[in-house]
């Protein structure tokens, strides 16, 4: 019963490097560039406190006279030079972009995480239990899908405003934002997971677990969940791009993060007001950053979806 000719078994790293996914990645210049750009922005955002030349959130360090300085030109009043110029309140645009990207990414990741947890949980339950539980959850999901997501987020925001006393509003703003965006996105995770769960449920390895009397929760989490995660990752990557844009939109509309902690969206809103009066840099650089971030994450998600396609099995 022994295997005949035994070549030395390759180690785990070698097998991972040689796997179909990493091969597909190495062969796709688009994926490599997209990954590179997103990684660059993410790292810059994480290390913002160390990289940024100024702290744009500390009002004490701001000097209104520094305002409206063009990029790379010394300010006519203070003589300070800023790489990408300053905005109307004297904040260094470069630093604000770094800190702003930080907020955008934080909100984006947290919103996706929230949507994932909620969507996966509900999808697993609906798919496994079937019957009226399934019908109920899916009808709720259907109703929610009839609302445009931004409108839904605005609605949640408004409701939250009614509940939270004014003193806490600023501190809670980010969390309300995360919940709002997350709640508007969970449905797609739930649907995908529900469909995949229904497929896996009838497979014999699940039946084998039921025969030995394993608890349904254990079956869901340890058996079924790992097998339905594939498409979820793809949705999550593209969802991240959508969440970032959603946050930017909400901040642009003025209901997102407070203006003392501007995110990329806030900057765009501010910059938009000054575009035609000549201070173009306040709008351009944050917009380019947002574009680069959202696009690269989106492209990465596209590549991931193709790479995980069952044709490669």
């Amino acid at each position, binding site marked *: *019963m*022994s*295997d*005949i*000719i035994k070549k030395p078994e390759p180690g785990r790293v070698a097998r991972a490097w040689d796997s179909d996914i990493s*091969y597909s990645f190495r062969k796709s210049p688009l994926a490599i560039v997209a990954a590179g750009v997103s990684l660059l922005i993410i790292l810059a955002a994480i290390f913002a406190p160390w990289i940024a030349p100024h702290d744009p959130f500390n009002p004490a360090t701001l000097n209104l006279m520094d305002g409206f300085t063009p990029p790379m030109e010394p300010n006519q009043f203070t003589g300070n030079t800023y790489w990408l110029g300053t905005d109307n309140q004297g904040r260094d645009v470069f630093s604000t972009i770094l800190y702003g990207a930080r907020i955008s990414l934080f909100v984006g990741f947290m919103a996706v995480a929230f949507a994932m947890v909620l969507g996966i949980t509900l999808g697993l339950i609906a798919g496994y239990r079937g019957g009226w539980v399934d019908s109920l959850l899916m009808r709720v999901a259907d109703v929610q899908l009839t609302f445009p997501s931004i409108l839904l987020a605005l609605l949640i925001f408004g409701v939250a405003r009614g509940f939270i006393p004014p003193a806490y509003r600023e501190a809670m703003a980010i969390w309300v934002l995360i919940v709002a965006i997350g709640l508007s996105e969970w449905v797609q995770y739930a649907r995908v997971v529900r469909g995949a769960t229904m497929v896996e449920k009838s497979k014999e390895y699940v039946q084998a677990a039921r025969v030995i009397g394993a608890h349904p929760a254990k079956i869901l989490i340890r058996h079924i969940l790992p097998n339905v995660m594939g498409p979820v990752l793809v949705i999550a990557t593209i969802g991240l791009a959508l969440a970032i844009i959603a946050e930017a939109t909400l901040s642009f509309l003025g209901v997102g993060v407070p203006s003392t902690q501007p995110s990329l969206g806030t900057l765009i809103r501010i910059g938009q007001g000054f575009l035609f009066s000549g201070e173009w840099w306040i709008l351009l650089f944050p917009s380019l950053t947002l574009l680069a971030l959202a696009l690269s994450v989106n492209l990465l998600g596209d590549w991931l979806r193709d790479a995980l396609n069952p044709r490669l099995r």
Partner: protein
Amino acid sequence: MKPPILSVRDLVVEFPTRRGTLRALDHVSFDIAEGEVLGMVGESGAGKSLTGAAIIGLLEPPGRVASGEIWLRGERIDNLPREKMRRIRGRRIGMVFQDPLTSLNPLYTVAEQLIETIRTHMDVSDKEARKRAVALLDRVGIPAAARRIDDYPHHFSGGMRQRVVIALALCAEPELVIADEPTTALDVSVQAQIIDVLKEICAERGASVMLITHDMGVIAETADRVAVLYAGRLAEIGPVRDVIQAAEHPYTAGLMGSIPTLTQTAERLTQIPGSMPRLNAIPQGCAFNPRCTKAFDRCFRDQPDLIPRADGRQVACWLYETAKSEVSNG
């Protein structure tokens, strides 16, 4: 002796992958005589379905015929342009697939599918085509054929559907019918009926049959000659009775011993140790050498040729090269 309907010479089918080229069929050669039923038997991965697909020109890319020749009644067909091959397919070579559920289009009635096929390949009127279709359905054993011809495939049971598929394969009166696992998806009691129908109707029309299956029992009942494939190579080919009752290739012998029957009395089934090698790990020399109890040094060096034996049998095994080698090592 009439010339064979089908002649395959040194057929090589390859699959280029990023890890190198896999050779799925390695210099396979055989003939099918007129009116004969040739069984093509082998385990999964041996390449029997690929042989059928290569002959009828339906190899899935990136698989391709790398070298070799396929002759249909004296005409070469492996290097034809697509359009010409399309005309041969259906008209001169018919195919019966394994799963009757998916080989019939669920959106068209049986009449529409039969008539379309008949009129594609033969120059007849609609009425005439319909007459032939009904007669054919009747011949394959569909009761009340004239009425049922207008039903959709899902109105038929599994066995009935497979009869329709057989009718579809034969409606253009082909010279060769390739049947790829025609009974595997059917119940045992229906299998026997389908095999009988296939054999009778092909004999009636003088069509030869290439019957691809993993089920030796079906071969025993139906085929005149049988070809045994192993890891993409032909191990043994010869008259059915000879190969089954007195197999010469060690693989065939092991295979026959491992099949439980209704009459054998052995307590344990013969088992061949190990398993068929994957296409990217075929050993040097004879592909069977790691599992063969009778292997000797030549088996590990050279791939065996098909050695002719008595009664038209051929065996690809060095044991039979000359009388000398039988003496040197048993």
